[in-house]
């Protein structure tokens, strides 16, 4: 029952391939699956692993993320003995608040690391959606006497030519080589940007690396630990599905994958609810000639038209005769009579006028920015 692991989510990956969608929000705040933000899944993994304290390192565009997280109450992270610590960028003296990367971000938040009382710390990027139990990772971490354990996946869907971090492992799961942004990845294991380490050791590693002039956490610090064999860098394979939300098509596909029953059942488990900010909306209403086929629809929606292979966030209104197909419609959007959407991503509060048609191929979904009327 002891609180052994403190969580830390780094939201500053700085991925630009999400285009308009991340103009006013960080990747961690990306709306997902009708009622969530991406960070809800990261938080959920940590809470269901028994973590009581979670820090969230904020980077640019964090207003919507802060607004979403609020007091931490919805995640039961609002107490005196447990809590969500928002770590906004520092702005004092000569600092203007932009981290150069994870190493800089962690080093700038050494205070959080020092003030925590847990023995271990789990650090994750915020752009990956996966299910794992950190207690199992800790068990293996201890059993194999790792100094640090990196999480990886063999899923080919995570491999990207020209980008990503890949691991070569020996038979005991120890990392023997690392590869960064290779033109074509040589190793089958993709490092997903999450790791477990003893808290005091992390503080020490950060201090030494910064003092030694390192600038990158993985490309610099981790790689040199592996290359110089100074520490035992272990690994843990993430089970099940995993998604990296690093481009518009990847975002689109990740959402669409949840129309599959088996995917939903892996992630949405009765004993491990995914908590998110509440809106107190009424249930979705189906009126008149509504026709819905293979869709996820949140509370507060009003469906009077046709919806197929789509995901509708809270408060979306599909008027009579409108058709929404293979699309993601974010909250409070209105699709007027006779409009036709196919392979679209509509951001919050967009309006599609009567009879407007927006049709794109599956591989290149159209993104409509927040508040636009088309």
């Amino acid at each position, binding site marked *: 029952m002891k609180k052994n692991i403190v969580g830390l989510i780094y939201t500053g990956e700085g991925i630009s391939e999400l285009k308009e969608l991340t103009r006013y929000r960080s990747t961690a705040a990306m709306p997902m699956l009708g009622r969530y933000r991406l960070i809800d899944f990261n938080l959920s993994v940590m809470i269901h692993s028994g973590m009581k304290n979670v820090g969230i390192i904020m980077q640019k565009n964090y207003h919507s993320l802060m607004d979403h997280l609020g007091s931490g*109450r919805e995640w039961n992270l609002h107490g005196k003995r447990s809590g969500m610590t928002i770590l906004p960028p520092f702005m004092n003296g000569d600092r203007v608040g932009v981290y150069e990367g994870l190493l800089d971000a962690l080093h700038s938040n050494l205070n959080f690391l020092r003030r925590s009382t847990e023995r271990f710390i789990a650090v994750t990027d915020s752009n990956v959606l996966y299910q794992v139990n950190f207690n199992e990772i800790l068990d293996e971490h201890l059993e194999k006497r790792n100094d640090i354990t990196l999480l990886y996946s063999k899923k080919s869907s995570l491999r990207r030519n020209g980008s990503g971090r890949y691991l070569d492992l020996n038979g005991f799961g120890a990392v023997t080589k690392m590869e960064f942004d290779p033109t074509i990845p040589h190793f089958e294991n993709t490092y997903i940007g999450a790791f477990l380490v003893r808290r005091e050791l992390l503080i020490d590693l950060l201090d030494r690396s910064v003092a030694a002039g390192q600038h990158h956490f993985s490309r610099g610090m981790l790689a040199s630990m592996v290359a110089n064999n100074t520490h035992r860098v272990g690994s843990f394979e993430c089970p099940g599905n995993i998604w990296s939300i690093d481009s518009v098509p990847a975002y689109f596909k990740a959402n669409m994958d949840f129309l599959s029953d088996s995917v939903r059942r892996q992630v949405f488990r009765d004993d491990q609810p995914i908590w998110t900010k509440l809106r107190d909306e009424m*249930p979705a*209403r*189906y*009126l*008149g000639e509504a026709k819905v*086929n293979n869709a996820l629809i949140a*509370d507060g929606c009003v469906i009077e038209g046709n919806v197929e292979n789509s995901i*509708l966030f809270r408060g979306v209104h599909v008027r009579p005769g409108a058709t929404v197909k293979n699309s993601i419609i974010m909250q409070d959007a209105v699709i007027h009579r006779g409009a036709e959407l196919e392979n679209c991503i509509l951001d919050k509060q967009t309006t599609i006028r009567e009879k407007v048609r927006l049709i794109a191929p599956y591989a290149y979904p159209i993104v409509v920015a927040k508040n636009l009327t088309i």
Partner: protein
Amino acid sequence: MLQKKTCVAMLLAGGQGSRLGILTRHVAKPAVSFGGKYRIIDFPLSNCVNADIDTVGVLTQYKPLELNAYIGSGAPWDLDISNGGVYVLPPYSRGDAGEWYKGTANAIYQNLEFIAQYNPDYVLILSGDHIYKCDYSEMLAHHIKNGAALTVAVREVPWEDASRFGLMNTDDAGNILEFVEKPKNPRSNKASMGVYIFSYDKLVHYLEADEKTPKSSHDFGKNVIPAMLLANEKLAAWRFEGYWKDVGTIESLWDANMDLLRYPPPINLHDRQWRIYARNVGEPPHYVSPKGAVHGSLITEGCEIFGRVSGSVLSAGVLVEEGAVVEDSVIMPYSHIGRGAVIKRAIIAENVVVGEDAAIGGDTGDIAVVGSNTRVPKGHTLAAGQQMGI
């Protein structure tokens, strides 16, 4: 030391609610599911907080644990505050013998000590079996402006129904001249909604007097209000207009659910200025499969629809399997409707499993009811108007 409150609300959550039959076998009436994601008590509680009344006592003598668990710290209604909040108050034993609440007035009498902690100027009395949106702060302003001892919320009912209600005759200024419970020959169609605002000192005075009155049935309508009229107290009527529905019977509960499917609905739950708050269950959006179909219905998050649903209200986590048909029915949280089952004009309570090819209810006739946690066997038939449960 608790800080003084202007107005404290006392919610009469009632007894066993036997008119709801097996629906209240495992839960108190106010905790019965309504409208997909609500419980009946969400309406008066939300009305309170929307009217800035932040201290509420919930009086119940039946299944207080379920209400306690549902209400919890009060957070869903913003009632988890350090001075005030919401408290479930079962009748508690004061010595060798405790006593069941003997009537509405006696229930409040037994909890005068709770009210006294906040030393309020006014006490709002509510009941826990009505669906409506009401700004009690307007009623309170009316009470204060009129300098009344008691203000009763009234609504006009159709003359033909009037004899089912407690009726008031008022003068032109809205003062109550006469109060008659369910008269045979109504002389007024202004019916009491069972919502009262008392000035605190008057409440204490008349409850103590009523308690000492032999043969009193300790009821506000039958005893306390007549006594106040007799003593020439100023009793004001405050007229409420808008949707108001008693959900104390199977038929009226079903009716009220069906009202939400009308367009426009007679009560707007999509009102962002007057939200109805409810405890959240943390379910994902509902899913409709390629073989599923939904028409004219209310579907809550967590549902999975592989069959056909029409004219129905589905609560959180309901599963409708392939080939199943749900028509004109109310399905409460986490119930499963098996393959090929047909549900018509029925209320299926919580955590029910309806077996394959079962047939419940009918196209006409009374509402069929399945009580919570019941397993309806494969192929079982339950005719219109029948009930089954454990």
